[in-house]
Structures are given as structure tokens and as C-alpha cells.
């Protein structure tokens, strides 16, 4: 009972931190001569106020969660994946290509193939930095940042030329987009809203990733390599291979997120020339969501929803009270900073609790700070 209460407070900490950030935001709103109560009411309504709003929040949370799942894997393997943006794009490109090529096949088959294609595309785009890191000692932060830029240009190139919507190819304006996917290929809607099957897929995958990390030898190895490459090598684990695998899987989930965006939301690929135009920055924000969720696949679910709600709600706030979009970005930044800063209290509480009852320490809720530590010397 007490245990559950403690867990509840832990879970609420990010929410409390978010509220604190919004309180700071309220001061800025006042400075802009906007009524903060009205503004935040709009934010709440926009995120949770109606079935539709809730659905939008979940739609936003879906790619975040998928990316976050990949991040859980790679960060636990001690490889940093900042390449989610590029991996989403490549996954989406491949998935779109499948949908535009195999037009004769039944919908379920094409969707399955497309998801596999997205997964594969992301895996390739994540696997390359993995190989570069494991076998060429190229730092993955550097290579994933670079691979993002390359993916964007590749997308622009493809959508302007080889993959352009045939109807646009005729026009002078040549909007860089692919043709629209056949209706039969769209991911099913879960309610009469934009909420689509992708959300369900993401939640199921969260459970699978949990199982992967803590119930399989593969997960055991990825975590072992992440914690101590030395001990892992000694234990007979091929360290480079699992480094690559961690990044590859991480990329694969991001790629899947890209595919789901195309098949569940946009029904085509379209570029404004930047990565975030397509991804909505889910490739970055997914990292934030995963860390909010303490790199735990299941905790990443509420974390993604929280973050999705914030993004959707903030846009709605912009519309309702006409605050500049820049303020929304500031608020976002504040929330991220406040939430990571609140971690320390969660850790302190956890330590205090462990001092009281040592058994409380469970392998399935690891401490985030510990995750990144590795053998000294």
C-alpha cells in the first residue's frame, strides 16, 4: 500500500515539474499581456478537452513512443542515438515506396510489408553509425548528427525527382511530395478520430521491448555491453556486434515511427525541406520521452503521452490565445529542463527507500543515472 503510494509520487514527479515549468511560463504570458489561466485552459482543452483532443494527443505520442522504445534499447547499450530524425525519414521513404509499388496487393499485406520496410530502413540508417562506432571508432553522436542531414537531403532529392507525385511532376510548382497511398493501405482508425492502429502497435511494441530487454538473452547482452564492455567481453559477448545491434534496433524503431506516420497520418510523404517538417521533431523528442520514462519501455508510454499532450496542447494554445509560436518553444524547453532537474528528487527518494528496505530494489526499474555509468579506470 505504502509502496504503491511511493510509486505514485515518483510517477507524479515529472507532472509536478511540468507544472512548475508552466508556472514560469505563466510569468512570461503575463509579460505578453496574455491571461495565463485562459492560456493554460486552452492548453489543457487542446490536449485532453475532448475525444478529438485526446486522440490528437495520442496520435502525437505514437511516433514519440516508437522512437523512445528504440532509445531505451540503445541508451541501455550505452550508445547514444541522436539520429532518430534521419532514421524516421529513411524508414518512411522505404515504407512509402512499398505502398506506391505494390499497388495490386491486399491492404493488410502491403501495410505489413511497409512496416517491415520502415523497420528495415531505420535499421540501416541506425546500423551504419553502429558499424562505424564498433569497427571504426567513429563517435555515434557525430555520425548520427551527420546522417540526419544526409537523410534530409536524400528525402528532398527523392521527393523532387524519382518519387515525386506524378500529378505534381506535370505542374510548374512541382510540390515535393509522393503520390497518395491507396485508401486500402491506410492504417485503420481506432475511433472516429485520427487515432490510428499505429498507437496500438506502439503500445504492444513497448511491452515487447520490455520483454526483450529483461527477459531475453539478447536484452541481457545489450544491457551487459552497455554497463561494462570489459566484463561483457570476458563473459564471451561479442561487444562490437551488440553495439551495432543496439543502434540498429534503435534506428529500426525510429524507422517504424516514420512508416507509421505515413500510413497512419499523412498517407504520403511530403517535404518542406527540413527534417522536422516531416517528423515533427519526434526523432529528438522521442529521446526526451525515453529519458522522462527513465529509459524504461513501459514508463515511456505515459512519458510520451505527457510530451505529446504538451506539444498538441501548446499548438492549440497558440491558436486560442494567439501567443507567438516562439513562446511555445520556450515553454517546451522549460518543461524539459524542469523535468530532468526533478530527477534528483526521485533518486533521493529511491535511495531513502532502499535504505529502509533493501529488497525494494528491482531490476526492472533501474536508476537512470546508473544506466550511463560504466567501469572506471
Amino acid at each position: 500500500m505504502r509502496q504503491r503510494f511511493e510509486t505514485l509520487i515518483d510517477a507524479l514527479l515529472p507532472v509536478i515539474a511540468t507544472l512548475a515549468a508552466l508556472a514560469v511560463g505563466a510569468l512570461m504570458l503575463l509579460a505578453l499581456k496574455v491571461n495565463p489561466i485562459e492560456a493554460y485552459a486552452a492548453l489543457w482543452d487542446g490536449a485532453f478537452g475532448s475525444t478529438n483532443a485526446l486522440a490528437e494527443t495520442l496520435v502525437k505520442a505514437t511516433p514519440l513512443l516508437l522512437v523512445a522504445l528504440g532509445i531505451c534499447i540503445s541508451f541501455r547499450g550505452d550508445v547514444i542515438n541522436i539520429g532518430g530524425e534521419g532514421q524516421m525519414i529513411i524508414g518512411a521513404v522505404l515504407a512509402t515506396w512499398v505502398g506506391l509499388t505494390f499497388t495490386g496487393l491486399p491492404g493488410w499485406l502491403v501495410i505489413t510489408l511497409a512496416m517491415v520496410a520502415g523497420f528495415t530502413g531505420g535499421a540501416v540508417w541506425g546500423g551504419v553509425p553502429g558499424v562505424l562506432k564498433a569497427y571504426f571508432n567513429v563517435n555515434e553522436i557525430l555520425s548520427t548528427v551527420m546522417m540526419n542531414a544526409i537523410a534530409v537531403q536524400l528525402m528532398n532529392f527523392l521527393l523532387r525527382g524519382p518519387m515525386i507525385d506524378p500529378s505534381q511532376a506535370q505542374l510548374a510548382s512541382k510540390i515535393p511530395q509522393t503520390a497518395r497511398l491507396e485508401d486500402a493501405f491506410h492504417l485503420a482508425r481506432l475511433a472516429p478520430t485520427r487515432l490510428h492502429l499505429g498507437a496500438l502497435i506502439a503500445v504492444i511494441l513497448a511491452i515487447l521491448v520490455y520483454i526483450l530487454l529483461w527477459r531475453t538473452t539478447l536484452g541481457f547482452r545489450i544491457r551487459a555491453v552497455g554497463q561494462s564492455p570489459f566484463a561483457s567481453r570476458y563473459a564471451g559477448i561479442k561487444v562490437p556486434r551488440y553495439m551495432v545491434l543496439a543502434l540498429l534496433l534503435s534506428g529500426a524503431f525510429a524507422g517504424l515511427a516514420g512508416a507509421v506516420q505515413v500510413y497512419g497520418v499523412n498517407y504520403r510523404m511530403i517535404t518542406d525541406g527540413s527534417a522536422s517538417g516531416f517528423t515533427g521533431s519526434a526523432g529528438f523528442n522521442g529521446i526526451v520521452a525515453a529519458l522522462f520514462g527513465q529509459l524504461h519501455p513501459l514508463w515511456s508510454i505515459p512519458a510520451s503521452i505527457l510530451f505529446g499532450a504538451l506539444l498538441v496542447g501548446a499548438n492549440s494554445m497558440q491558436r486560442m490565445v494567439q501567443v507567438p509560436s516562439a513562446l511555445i518553444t520556450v515553454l517546451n524547453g522549460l518543461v524539459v529542463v524542469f523535468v530532468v532537474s526533478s530527477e534528483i528528487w526521485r533518486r533521493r527518494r529511491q535511495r531513502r527507500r532502499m535504505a529502509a528496505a533493501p529488497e525494494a530494489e528491482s531490476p526492472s526499474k533501474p536508476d537512470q543515472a546508473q544506466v550511463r555509468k560504466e567501469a572506471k579506470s
Partner: protein
Amino acid sequence: MITDLLSTTVLIGILASGIRLATPYLYAAIGETFGQKSGVLNLGVEGQMLLGCFAAFYVAYTTGNLWLGLLAAMFVGALMGLAMAFVTVNLHAQQGISGIGFYLFGLGMSELLFQRLMGTVETVKGFPKIYIPGLSDIPGLGEIFFNQNILVYGAYLLVPLAWFVLNKTTLGLKIRAVGENPDAADSLGVNVARVRYFTIILGGTLSGIAGASLSIALLNVFQQNMTSGLGFIAVALVYFGGWKPVGVLGGALLFSMVNSLQLWIQVLGIPVPSDIAVMMPYVLTILVLVATVSRVRSPSALSKPFERES
């Protein structure tokens, strides 16, 4: 047409442009090098740069004094650094993620202030090119090296200076020790928190200057999100440079020269799709690292909060 690339005009153009373009990368990446050397990964460079960009521009625009503008950028960068230091050093917040938070904050804040205080895009007269009699007139070399503004020279002076501080001073020794084994440094009475505060604030200040070098020296305008990912590239260049100022310099020059090269490829009408040309610097940066299989290790304590066990 490919042979056109070898003409002196193009070569001089590429070199001069590479040297100029490298300036903001250098300031930001050297600042980041100090942070990472002491074990702090700051992904908020872009946000610090943007705020520095705006502060420099706004102050220079309203007061007409470029130096005040530069000071303002340094101050704002330092302030961002201070906040980052508090969050990562005292609150042990996950560094990468708080950096992303500060990036978003800087991105939004610079734009918000721009909208409120300026309203529209304006220009200032930035730091002028410095004409060095004799040297600036040397054909080719003069154009490349001696026809730049003061912040460009500053960036290049920063490289040996940073090397000197890191390798020849007691402070540098502390920074390196704190980034490798903060427990050991702590056990010798080195104040780990203070060292990290110093490097993070220094990093912020330099990012601020990087921003100023764009808004009041190289471009002389401010526009929302005008750094456009430059800060993230700067962070990547620290890895490229293997945490050495000279390596960072090499990376910055390589990246910006290839960027300039791709502009020339387009200008000379070499038939490469523009998107593919734009990709070049990114691809090449990776390839160079692959080819030079370096064995540099990152500072052991990088991105790990330091906390005495109890």
C-alpha cells in the same frame, strides 16, 4: 567543368570561405571542448548561440556599439551556461537532455525577443574587415588570410590559447582530471563543481561569441533560427577533433571548406543535383573519420554527473 574547380579563383574562394565559415564553429566547438573535457556534454550550444546572436545584434543595433553587442552576447551566453551548470552540476540532471531543453529555450526565447523588440529583419554594420597593409595585398594569400574581420582572427587565436590553457596551466590540469576521474580529483581537494561551473560558463560565453560572430560580424542580420543546426554541427566537431583544439580546427575547416566546395560545384554548373551537393560536407566528414581510424577515447566521465557517494 570539373577542372574549373582547380582554377585559382575557385581555390582561393574555397579557402577564404572555409576560413570564414569555420569561425562560428570554432568558437562554439572550442567552448564545447572545454565542457566535454571536464565531463559535461552540452547539447544546448545551438540555443546559446541563438541567444548570443540576438543579444549581440539587438545591443549593437540599438546602441550602435559593436563591442557592447559582443559583450551582451558573452553575457547572455554565460547566463545560459550558468543555468546549465546549476541544472547539471547541482541537480545532477541528465546532461544531454537538459541541453536539448536549453536549446529549445534559446531557440524560442531569441525568436520571442526578436518579435517583441525588433519586429522585423534589420541590418547592422558589423565588424569591418581588417585591412593589413602589405599582407592583405598579397595575391591569393591576402584574400584568404588577411581580409577578414576581427572575430575571425579571434577564433583562430582561440585555438592555440585553448590548447595552452588545457595543457599548460593548473586549471587545464584540473579540467582534464575532472573529466577523466572526478573521484580522484575530488579526493585531491579539487572542487569538481567549481571546475565544471567554470567550463560550462566558459562554453556558454564562447557560444555567445559564436552567435555574435554571425549576427554582427559575418552576416550582420538577425533572423529567427538563423543558426540552423550550426550548433549541433559544432558539438559533432568536438568528437571529430578528438577533444583537441587543433583537431576541432581541422574538423571545422574541413566541414566548411567542403561546404564551400559544394556551393562552387553548383555555381560552376557541374551536373549534380543540388540536394546531393548539399550532402557532401556531411558525408565527407564521416568518411574522413573512417579513413583516419583514430583511437581517441572520450573523457571517461563525459556526461556522468559527479556525486560523492554520500
